[in-house]
């Protein structure tokens, strides 16, 4: 297993190298990128000592943009490997500082919706499988399909319209109320929690569909397996068949996929955070990407690529851990 893990990790490094190269090429070729804008801004100052072209050359040298794509990428890679991610251009702080400032909001948001998703989707999926072709099954299937098909931005807008505009229960956007600074610590926590309700609801709605279908499919597979038939033939009560024999076996794929999606909790929800103006990492990266902030974008994309690869690896490893029949090779 250790050998397998090592091999996978090596693969991941290679993949990551190429993924980041593609991203770097894209960012590098941004027509009017951050550097150009900055140079124009500096050159148009009242007592600018250098022309636009001179500033551009200066800034390019400063930001390591004058070496060409490949050398530039290698330079970035060299400093990134030792943990030096540079300063964010758009946020004007070190990349890691901005990361620390934002990632925990994203994680909180992700965790809440992850827990809600499991609480809602797994029981629904099991009930649907138990009553296959029944009303509950159809109902759950349709609901899950609708949830899969809803665009995030539409759900967010709809929730805002209903709960903020029509009912006035929550603020439209933002993370803090207007009297946030006057509150005590617990009040501050409650205030932020209140502002996280709609975003986490949005995330939950758009994600429960997939998990529900997954649970249902796997539960059905287990329910049709021989040992369940045997248990039923033996006269084991249906409740015990479902909860004891079937569910525990359904847990195998569930635990592996959910385990694999754990790293993703740190990745942030780009659209949701942007729409609700939650200062999470998704929002920060969206701003960075649209402003061609190479250091932060590169960091963020590397970060979520690592999370994806890590998620896949965890899924595969968990499979071997949870299911003794599976051998990794």
């Amino acid at each position, binding site marked *: 297993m250790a050998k397998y893990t090592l091999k996978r990790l090596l693969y991941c490094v290679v993949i990551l190298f190429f*993924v980041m190269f593609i991203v770097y090429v894209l960012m590098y070729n941004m027509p009017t990128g951050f550097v150009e804008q900055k140079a124009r801004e500096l050159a148009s100052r009242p007592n600018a000592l250098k022309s636009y072209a001179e500033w551009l050359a200066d800034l390019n040298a400063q930001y390591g943009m004058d070496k060409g794509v490949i050398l530039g990428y290698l330079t970035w890679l060299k400093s990134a490997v030792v943990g030096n991610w540079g300063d964010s251009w758009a946020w004007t702080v070190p990349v890691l500082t901005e990361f620390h400032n934002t990632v925990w909001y994203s994680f909180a948001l992700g965790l809440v919706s992850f827990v809600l998703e499991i609480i809602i989707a797994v029981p629904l999926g099991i009930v649907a499988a138990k009553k296959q072709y029944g009303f509950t099954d159809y109902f759950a299937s349709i609901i899950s399909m609708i949830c899969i098909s809803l665009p995030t931005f539409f759900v967010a807008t709809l929730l805002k319209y209903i709960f903020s505009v029509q009912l006035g229960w929550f603020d439209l956007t933002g993370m803090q109320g207007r009297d946030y600074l006057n509150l005590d610590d617990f009040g501050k926590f409650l205030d932020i929690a209140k502002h996280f309700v709609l975003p986490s609801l949005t995330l939950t709605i758009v994600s429960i569909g997939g998990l529900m279908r997954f649970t249902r499919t796997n539960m059905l597979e287990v329910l049709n397996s021989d040992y369940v038939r045997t248990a039923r033939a033996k006269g084991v009560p249906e409740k015990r068949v479902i909860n004891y024999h079937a569910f525990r076996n359904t847990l195998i794929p569930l635990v592996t996929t959910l385990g694999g999606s754990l790293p993703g909790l740190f990745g942030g929800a780009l659209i949701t955070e942007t729409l609700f103006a939650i200062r999470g990492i998704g929002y920060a990266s969206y701003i960075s990407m649209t402003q061609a902030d190479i250091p932060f974008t590169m960091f963020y994309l590397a970060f979520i690529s690592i999370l994806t690869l890590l998620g896949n690896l965890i899924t595969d490893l968990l499979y071997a851990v949870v299911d003794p029949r599976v051998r990794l090779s």
Partner: protein
Amino acid sequence: MSTYDLNARLKSRSTTQTKNTTSEMALDDVARVKVLSPGRKVFKRFIRNRLAVFGSITLIILFAFSFLGPLVYPYGQKQIFYTFEIQNVNYALAKQNTTYNGYDVDTSIELERTVVNSMNSSIMKMQENNLDSMLIPGEPYGYQIDKIADGVYTLSALDLQSIATVGEASVEIGTYDSIKKTISFTSTEVAGLAEEAAKSIKGKDGSFTFNGVEYSYTRGAAKSYVLTAVMDGVNLTAQDPGKGFTEAVQKAIQAGSTSFEFNGKTYTFVQKGNNTNVYLAGEPNTAKVYTCLTVDTLVTGQQVSNAFKSAVLMALKDSSNGAFEADDVSYTVRNEDGAFVIYDADGNMFAELDTFTVRRYTGEDSMDFDLKEAIAANIMQMNEEGSKTITFEHRLPSQGENGEYVYDENGNLLYSNAEIQITQRNTGEYVINCDQKNYVIDRYAPPSFAHPLGTDGDGFDVMARIMYGGRISLMVGFVVIIIEVILGIIMGGIAGYYGGWVDNLIMRLVDVFYCLPMLPIMIIIGAMMDAARMDTYLRLMVMMAALGLMGWASVARLVRGQILMLREQEFMVATEATGIRVRDRIFRHLIPNVMPQLIVIATMGIGGVILTESTLSFLGLGVKHPLATWGTIINSVSSASAMAHYAFIWIPVGLLISLTVVAFNFVGDGLRDAYDPKSKK
């Protein structure tokens, strides 16, 4: 209604029975078992799935709506709609005119631009000092401004000779020629100055003292120096007009008069700094007449020429009797209680001169005389009351259905009473407001019969935009999926069939593309296209290509997996044994067997692509305005206030996106179940 014919039934049954009995049938005869072709079998299973059928019907309707709808729907996606709306508009502007406009009297006289440009300030200076006449020295002419009536001034050119300066002034004494060592004096000779100058003048400029007077010199042309000295008292700058002139000047200044007579000539003083200059003025020739009065004709909108204006203003001179001729018509102007009224030859009132101007807000003079009078009267009343606003009723030209003016059968304007409000601005102007019917862009019109879903913020018909947007959204879905499938089949097919290092290489590539985060990459590409200011159609192409490139990995993975499985089966061994070409083996025998899964994954993929596309367009990074897609329609009302007020725009569109994706997913699900009933456990 058909009758049941028992005899015919029995007859037909007996014939079939005889047929069956005549041809002996085996137990395993194929004719006994109703066999469906694989395709029909799939279709039958598909039809049985209610959700799939619902999805199919929805999709058919959506396609018809998007692709056929625009053919019958009367509006285009970029058609802007206008409407007539009653708005409280700034109808007119009234103000006390304080700026003076000049009208030519004699164009043959050349005027200095600086003098003409500073007329308003010159007139203001005259008003401050209560002067009736002012002299403006200039070279070689001078100018004179005369007040001929209240608010009417003439500008004349005249010969002007500077005679003397009074007060402490730097006076030009003469020119010193350093070769001849002589001085040519300007007015009075100073004895001994030439000798002193010869001694003292060195270099370019400097100064020396002679007889207690300080002389300064500067080098002019050809070794000559200009000598100046600061002198007090009356300093002559030209030939001495005669004995006793200096005394006469001082006397006149002490008397405080602005001009005096000496030897039969009139001399004029012009104040310049602390000094007074004395000029000998010639006969003035009037070049322009300036006024702050405006002509309000009794006939609405009648414009008078500039020649008329200058003629009427010149007629205001005290010396004239008020009669004047302009454009070959004779008029008379009379001063009646401080107002100037112009009468035509028949003695009818033709126009009025007034400093109080009332104009339409656009600046044009198209208002009725009685309305102007009424406004002026109301402003007067308002000022008396000390209020800043007043409301009154007056007749205004009535407007028809389309905002145009209405005429009766004789071609005269029809009038109707309207409420008019006058408000004084802080600048001292008066704004006249009233309700007018205006032709405006029909923004955010609520749903109506003409616009079933209303119009959006640009005056576009939302229904039309949804139709055209559906075209693009659906097209994007299909094109992207086709790109994905083609790339996926080629790459997956090659990898699965050849195996070995080719497989390894392609699968690592698949891994790379699998790992690429789609949404961030698309956002970066969108921002790139923003920066490049790309044309919106080109953006569409680039976006489709990028989405296709990003999505092929999963298809390739599926194709490869299937091919690895199928490769081991007997029919593939058979193709190898019969020596079929490799290309045919892959694309004619392997790929068709992967087709069912491909169709399923493609159908469900279209939904995903439509979601991504609409998300990007919603963020403003996909297809751009004015091209419609479902995402851009929602984007156009995504601001907080628009979202709250114009829910009738974005809710239907959002539901439509969801419905489309749901339908594709249902169909995909149904297809999978139909192709592979075993998966439907």
